[in-house]
């Protein structure tokens, strides 16, 4: 009998700590499937952030680093400069990448560092208890915006894909979502392209994944996916913001 669905080699066979309905797990799986498919498992090094996905270093079975909050792109820079023939990726949340680590991500992108960033935009600081993230939508209630995010107090949500795509160092930038199967398949394609861009040595690649946090959004898993589709996608349009001619 042919096995049509198995655990990717690049993921460990252990339970994760993610809440029911959390989409971190789906994205882990997509990254692992791509690593398997491109047959790069043995030479891949991942960098885990500080955030709900900190234990990604336990879930991915390749060599891993744990980085300080926001600094994964600097850590990845150090790794890739020492080992240019390895495949390096960071996995970062929106607090990690778009607030405390803004300097590191912008300059890694500007330098055209040849690694891949998986950027989880769940519009919240999940790990620390649902505080406002730089990506929190206007009007969205969080534990630190109990009356809803107000532009006059907190300014506007940060659009990372749009910002980074104007830098000459970026070779591939896409925003995807994982709120339904059709979008999961598209997300997988984008993640694969991002790794292919790295393998081709074309420059910096980043995939922003709109992701659900039912726990801190105070919604059921199903409601959370619906909220994502109805509220996040209009503000964070999906698509490939930058791609080299070489990858179709």
């Amino acid at each position, binding site marked *: 009998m042919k096995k049509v669905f198995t655990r990717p080699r690049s993921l460990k066979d252990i339970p994760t700590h993610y809440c029911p309905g959390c989409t971190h797990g789906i994205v882990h799986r997509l990254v692992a499937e791509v690593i398997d498919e491109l047959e790069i498992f043995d030479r891949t090094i991942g960098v885990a952030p500080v955030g709900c996905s900190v234990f990604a270093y336990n879930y991915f079975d390749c060599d891993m680093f744990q*980085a300080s909050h926001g600094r994964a792109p*600097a*850590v990845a*820079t*150090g790794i890739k400069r020492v080992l240019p023939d390895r495949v390096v990726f960071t996995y970062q949340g929106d607090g990690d990448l778009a607030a405390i680590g803004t300097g*590191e991500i912008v300059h890694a992108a500007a330098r055209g560092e040849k690694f891949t960033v998986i950027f989880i935009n769940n519009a919240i600081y999940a790990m620390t208890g649902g505080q406002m993230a730089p990506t929190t939508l206007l009007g969205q209630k969080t534990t630190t915006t109990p009356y809803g995010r107000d532009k006059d107090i907190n300014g506007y949500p940060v659009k990372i894909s749009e910002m980074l795509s104007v830098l000459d160092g970026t070779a591939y930038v896409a925003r995807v979502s994982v709120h339904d199967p059709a979008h999961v398949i598209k997300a997988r394609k984008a993640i694969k392209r991002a790794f292919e861009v790295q393998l081709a040595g074309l420059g910096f690649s980043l995939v922003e994944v709109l992701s659900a946090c039912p726990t801190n959004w105070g919604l059921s898993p199903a409601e959370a996916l619906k909220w994502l589709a109805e509220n996040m996608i209009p503000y964070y349009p999906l698509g490939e913001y930058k791609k080299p001619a070489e990858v179709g």
Partner: protein
Amino acid sequence: MAKVLMKGNEAIGEGAVRAGCRYFFGYPITPQSELPHYLAKRLPEVGGVYLQSESETAAINMVYGAAGAGARVMTSSSGPGISLMQEGISYLAGAELPCVIVNMIRGGPGLGNIAPAQSDYFQATRGGGHGDYRVIVLAPASVQEIIDLMRLAFDLADRYRNPVMVAGDGILGQMMEPVELGEEEDVQIPPRPWAATGRMGGEKKLINSLYIVPEELEQHNLKLARKYALIASKEQRWEEYRLDGARLVLVAFGTVARICKAVVDRCREEGLAVGLIRPITLWPYPQKAFEPLMGKVDSFLVVEMSLGQMVEDVRLAVNGRHPVHFYGRCGGMLPVAADVVQEVKKLYGGEGN
């Protein structure tokens, strides 16, 4: 081999290259700029990488990545930049990664100034960042000693899998002196089975400082403590100068120790039995240097370019057995030999000694 004339900052660069260091990440700051200038030229010549980072925060995290990937790597900065690096140094210590961090200390606090100082002593010797950890700290006092200590710095970092700081000051960095470079060795970097370089068919490796279970973090902390105790017992280094029959012993490191040697000579000419202990390792502090003097001297005079930081370590080493006095200049001012001689004369044979 013939001697060559070199600036201290350049000697740090050349010493690092000769120690097998091939990666430098840093952000510009005075008074260490000749070092990045030197390495920006020199590292590409030997197939290495010089990369100017967007901040010291980024620089130290690049060091974390490069060290975890198995490289001999260094960064360099001064006061404000070293403060920005502290979180990263704490992570490096927690993850037990070898690296070398140069601090050409300038005046503080805040932006302070760019003149020489020793006021980062506490920060360097007490860990500096958060958590229970230690960084090995070496304090050269001449350009020749820089060359020798750079090799030692990388070797100690590897031997103990620990960050090593080289602490100097602006004078040492700018000073030009003839140095003996010796033959360029083909340095064999010790194997790093723990490095995360991609599995390449082997076991999974993890570079990490997170131990979420308290029992596990305590075990990790105790393991680090055993390592620090081993370093403290084996790696204390110091220089003794004219300690024979000394009644009053000066204690000073780096540039100030050179001034104090002149003070010792002048005092000896005048018949005063004065000597000097020059710590070379600031951590571990050379406590062993003080033991043989206990009961044989009258007092100690610690001279620093700060308001008095190392003096606390001397008091710990002497442990109340003799008076420990302090003389310091700060803000970028140097202690003048004649003033220190005056201070010695005030104390020498006086009351309370």
